[in-house]
C-alpha cells in the first residue's frame, strides 16, 4: 500500500479509518453499495479490495445550468460513508457547491488536479450547457460553460452526466429552449459518458455508479441511451408496489376519491411510471422511506427524455406540437365522424349516380330469375 504523504493518494479505506470508521463499517458499506449496484455477492470481495488498495479516483464535479438537486440528492444518500468518504474526497478537488476553497484558489486547485491526473480523473457534470449566444447564458469565473466543459473534458478518463439537465437538458431545454441548453453527450463525443438521468437521480444510484467505476476500473454496463443497466433497465411501473392494482384494473379516478385512499394504481391520473426507466420502485428515496407513487402522486417521468414537453403531469395524453391541447383521441373521433359522414353521403349519392348501372344489373338478374326452371 502506498504511503500517504500526500492525502490525495490515500485509498478510500484509509480515508474511512482516518475519519473514525472501523473495518466492520467499511465492509457493511461494501455490501450495501454492492447490493444496489446489482453485482453478485462474490464480487463484493473485489470491491472491498479495490477500495482498500487503490488510491482514490480524482474527481472534478462541474456545475452548469442546474439547480443543484443532484448534489442535494447525493449528500442525502442513505449510507453515511457515501457522504463522508466519496463526497469528502470529491470536494477536495473541485465542486462549486461544497468545496472549502473559493475564487482563484479553487480554480487553481482544479487546474492542478487536471494537470496532475491528466487522462485519469473522472469528470462529473451537473447541468446542461447553453450554446445559444456564444454560450453567454452560463458563465463561471468569467468563462462560459462550454469553454469550461471542453477544457475539463479534454483530460478526463470518463464523464458522468448527472441528472436530466446533463443527460437530456431538462426544464431549461424545454420548448422553446431560449438558451440553447444542450446535454453533455451532444457536445463531448470522444469520451465515454455515463448518463444518469433523473431530476434528481437517486443518491444511492449516484454512489453506486461512482463505486462501480472505482472498484472495477471500467464503466458499468450501459443501455442504448448511455444509462447504467443495473439502475435504468426497468420501468418504474414494473417495479411499482401498486402494480397489482393495475393488473386488477383498479384505478384512482380522482386524487380525492375512495380509490386514492385505498392506494390504487395512479395510471389514469397521469402516472408516467409505464414509460419511465428508473429504480425508484426498488431503491426509493431518503433511505428507502418512500417515493412519489408511494406518497400518492403519479410519477412525473423525470428521468424520461424531454419530460417537460411530454404533456400534462396529470394526463397520459400527450399534447403534441405548438401548444394545441387536442389529443389524438379527439382527432381520431373527429376524423372518424367525418369519414362516417362521408360514407353516408357516398351511400346515398351512389344510389343516384349508379342508378342506371344498378338497374341494368337488377333487371338482368330478375329476367334470369324468371327463367329458372326448378
Amino acid at each position, binding site marked *: 500500500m502506498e504511503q500517504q504523504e500526500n492525502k490525495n493518494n490515500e485509498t478510500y479505506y484509509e480515508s474511512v479509518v482516518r475519519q473514525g470508521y472501523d473495518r466492520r463499517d467499511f465492509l457493511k458499506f461494501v455490501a450495501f453499495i454492492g447490493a444496489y449496484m446489482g453485482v453478485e455477492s462474490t464480487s463484493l470481495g473485489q470491491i472491498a479490495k479495490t477500495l482498500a488498495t487503490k488510491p482514490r479516483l480524482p474527481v472534478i464535479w462541474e456545475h452548469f445550468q442546474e439547480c443543484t438537486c443532484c448534489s442535494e440528492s447525493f449528500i442525502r444518500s442513505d449510507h453515511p460513508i457515501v457522504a463522508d468518504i466519496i463526497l469528502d474526497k470529491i470536494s477536495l478537488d473541485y465542486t462549486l457547491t461544497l468545496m472549502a476553497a473559493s475564487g482563484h484558489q479553487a480554480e487553481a486547485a482544479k487546474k492542478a488536479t487536471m494537470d496532475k491526473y491528466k487522462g485519469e480523473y473522472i469528470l462529473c457534470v451537473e447541468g446542461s450547457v447553453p450554446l445559444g449566444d456564444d454560450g453567454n447564458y452560463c458563465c463561471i469565473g468569467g468563462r462560459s460553460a462550454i469553454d469550461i466543459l471542453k477544457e475539463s473534458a479534454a483530460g478526463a478518463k470518463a464523464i458522468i452526466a448527472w441528472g436530466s439537465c446533463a443527460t437530456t437538458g431538462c426544464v431549461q431545454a424545454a420548448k422553446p429552449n431560449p438558451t440553447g441548453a444542450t446535454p453533455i453527450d451532444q457536445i463531448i463525443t470522444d469520451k465515454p459518458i455515463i448518463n444518469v438521468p433523473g431530476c434528481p437521480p437517486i443518491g444511492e444510484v449516484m454512489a453506486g455508479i461512482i463505486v462501480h467505476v472505482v472498484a472495477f476500473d471500467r464503466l458499468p454496463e450501459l443501455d442504448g441511451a448511455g444509462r447504467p443497466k443495473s439502475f435504468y433497465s426497468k420501468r418504474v411501473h414494473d417495479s411499482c408496489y401498486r402494480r397489482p392494482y393495475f393488473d*386488477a*384494473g383498479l384505478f384512482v379516478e380522482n386524487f380525492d376519491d375512495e380509490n386514492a385512499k385505498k392506494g390504487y394504481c395512479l395510471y389514469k391520473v397521469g402516472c408516467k411510471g409505464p414509460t419511465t426507466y428508473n429504480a425508484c420502485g426498488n431503491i426509493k428515496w431518503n433511505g428507502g422511506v418512500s417515493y412519489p407513487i408511494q406518497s400518492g402522486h403519479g410519477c412525473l417521468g423525470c428521468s424520461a427524455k424531454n419530460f417537460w414537453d411530454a404533456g400534462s403531469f396529470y394526463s397520459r395524453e400527450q399534447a403534441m406540437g405548438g401548444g394545441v391541447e387536442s389529443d*389524438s*383521441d379527439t382527432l381520431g373521433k373527429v376524423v372518424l365522424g367525418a369519414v362516417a359522414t362521408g360514407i353516408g353521403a357516398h351511400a346515398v349519392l351512389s344510389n343516384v349516380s*349508379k342508378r342506371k*348501372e*344498378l338497374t341494368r*344489373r337488377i333487371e338482368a338478374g330478375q329476367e334470369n330469375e324468371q327463367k329458372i326452371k326448378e
Partner: protein
Amino acid sequence: MKTRDYKRAYVWQLAVRIFHWANALSITLLIITGYLIAHPPAIRSTAEASTQFWFGYIREIHFMSAYLMFAVLFLRLYYAIVGNKYANWKVFVPFNKKGLTGIWHTIKHDVLLLNDKEYNYKDSVHVGHNNVAAVSYLAMFFMAIIMIFTGFGMYAANATWFLPKMFAWVPEFFGGDMNIRWIHHITMWAFILFVVVHVYLVFYHDWLEGHGESSSMISGYKFVRTERVAEANDNTENAVK
C-alpha cells in the same frame, strides 16, 4: 335485355384468405384491447385486487393478438412471392403508368361517383384488388410495420424472448416511450379508419357489381364475365375454371 355469362375464377388462395381473417381477428382484438389499455373503464368493484386480473388479461390478449398479426404478416409476405397473380407483391405497388391510370379511374368511378360515357367493365370491375385498394393495403402494411416496431419497442423491456428484445432500441431512437406510445396510439386510429372504409367499400362493390366481392374472401371465388376469360387457351381456362 342482354344477360351476361359469368365464369367462376379462383382469386384468393387459401393462405391469402387465412391471412385475411387472422389479420382481421387480431386487428379487431388489438383495437378493442388497445383502446381499453389507453382508457381503462372505471370499474366499481368491492373485490380485492388479489382476486382480479382483468386488466392483465386485456393486456395479455393484446400481446397474443400482436404475435398473431406479426406471424401472419410473414405468411402474407411469403405469398407475395409464391402466390398467384392477384397476391403478388407487384399488385401493391401500382405506380407505373397503367397503375396510376387505374388509380385515377377508380377514384373517378367509385369515390367521386362519376360514370364513364360508355360503361367499361374492364376498368370498372376488377378481378383482384382495384388499384386504389392495393395502395391502401400497401399503406396498411407500413402501418403494421409502425405498430410492430413501436409495440414490440414498448414490450421489449419486459420481454425475455429474443424476438421482442430485438426492438429494445426503438423507444430511445424515437425520443422515449411516451413518443412511441403516441405513435402507436395514433396509428391505431389509422387502423380504425381503414377498417371502416374497407368494410364499407367491400359492401359497396358487392352491392353495385354483384360479383361475389364479400363472399370471395371466404370461398376464394369471384365471378367474371366470360369475355374476360381466354377460352382458346387450355392453361388459362384451367386457371380460372
